[in-house]
């Protein structure tokens, strides 16, 4: 199941697809990795305010050459910019925005998503690994809507969408929508529902790479 030739959406396209679902005026936090790319794809006619938990509301894209400030970074510690109308604040105020339910949407990466919406994205549970959680547990507990961008399967080809997470949870029952390279999938009370397929990908192809039954759109 290696993907040497591209099948479905690439990383940029996944980010662009996720951006389509963010409404005008939304306050959005983007996780590290592919989610960071979402900042580039605000659809025409909309304005979205990006929050980065290290203390900035109104985050812009990467700086142009010569405009870098090593003290203006995002949660992934990458150089960013601030829009006109941004605000800086300290970490406790920043997480008040998260924990207090003020952020509308968070787009995160995932190691596993359970069909009940459980998210595992911080630890494999391997006792030899260095545990590291960052802000993920705060985000899933506090943000109104949690979405995931992830490759549909792991590097080794194992499904990331599963009947029940085997890795330690980040949060229980928190994910509402998943963007993979193959499809857009909603978490519903009945389970994973495919709401859109990537170009050239069919339902069976996605089902084969998923750890539990999918519902067709």
């Amino acid at each position, binding site marked *: 199941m290696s993907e040497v030739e591209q099948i479905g959406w690439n990383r940029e396209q996944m980010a662009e697809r996720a951006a389509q679902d963010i409404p005008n005026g939304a*306050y959005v936090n983007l996780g590290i990795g592919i989610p960071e790319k979402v900042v580039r794809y605000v659809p025409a006619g909309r304005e979205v305010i990006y929050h980065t938990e290290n203390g*900035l509301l109104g985050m812009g894209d990467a700086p142009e050459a010569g405009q870098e400030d090593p003290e203006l970074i995002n949660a992934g510690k990458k150089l960013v910019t601030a829009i006109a*109308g*941004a*605000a*800086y*604040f300290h970490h406790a105020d920043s997480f*008040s925005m*998260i924990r207090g339910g*003020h952020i509308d949407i968070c787009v995160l990466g995932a190691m596993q998503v359970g069909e009940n919406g459980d998210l595992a994205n911080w630890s494999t549970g391997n006792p030899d690994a260095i545990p590291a959680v960052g802000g993920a547990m705060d985000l899933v507990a506090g943000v109104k809507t949690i979405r995931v961008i992830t490759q549909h399967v792991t590097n080794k080809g194992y499904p990331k969408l599963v009947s029940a997470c085997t890795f330690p949870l980040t949060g229980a029952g928190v994910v509402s929508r998943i963007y993979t390279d193959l499809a857009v999938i909603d978490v519903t009370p009945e389970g994973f529902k495919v709401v859109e397929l990537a170009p050239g990908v069919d339902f069976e192809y996605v089902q084969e790479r998923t750890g539990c039954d999918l519902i067709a759109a």
Partner: protein
Amino acid sequence: MINKQISSVEEAVANIHDGATVMIGGFGEAGSPIELIHALIDQGAKNLTVVNNNTGSGHVGLAALIENRRVAKMICSFPKSANSLVFPDLYTKGEIELELVPQGTLAERIRAGGAGVPAFYTATSVGTPLAEGKEVRNIKGRDYVLEYGLTADFALIKCLKADRYGNLIYNKTARNFAPVMAMAADVTIVQTKEFVQAGDLDPEIVATPGIFVDQIITVADPLLESVLVNAGEVYP
């Protein structure tokens, strides 16, 4: 484009419903959003629970809201300042409810409500009548009472400058409860002395980031409670 400006104080308070919990900024007259309060009186919502440090003075602003029998319950720390005539009278008659909260606990409960902290412990009020009926817990040898976060349906606050995103700065000690009330209310309504362009406020000095603000109305020359009280004004 995001633009939280609205066109009138009437529009600002239009959705405040009977029975709503309304946080109102201000410590005495500093920070009191008089025009928004007067618009709320005109609008007519009643049976309100109001959160403010005080209960207003004279017969204008918050005192007028109370005098016009719109407030069923006050949550405050100090309901009897100089010139507070209305609340004491109604309270003595048993016609308004009071939840008395120490000022710092009030500020922290509001901040907790806005920060998603449902409850916290504090040493304030331990051993006093205001701790009666509250859970007391000993942590590392000292007693603390359990206090709950406070949220509201609406906040009415006043600021010095605002931009279209809702980023705010305040004037001196008029800041007081406004930033935490903006955090704790579902809908935060702001009257600003000045409306500025996005980017005019240095991102380092924004006291309330726009995420906590919903509606902005410019009131360039706000009334001053003390001036109205000294003139013997009665609203409406």
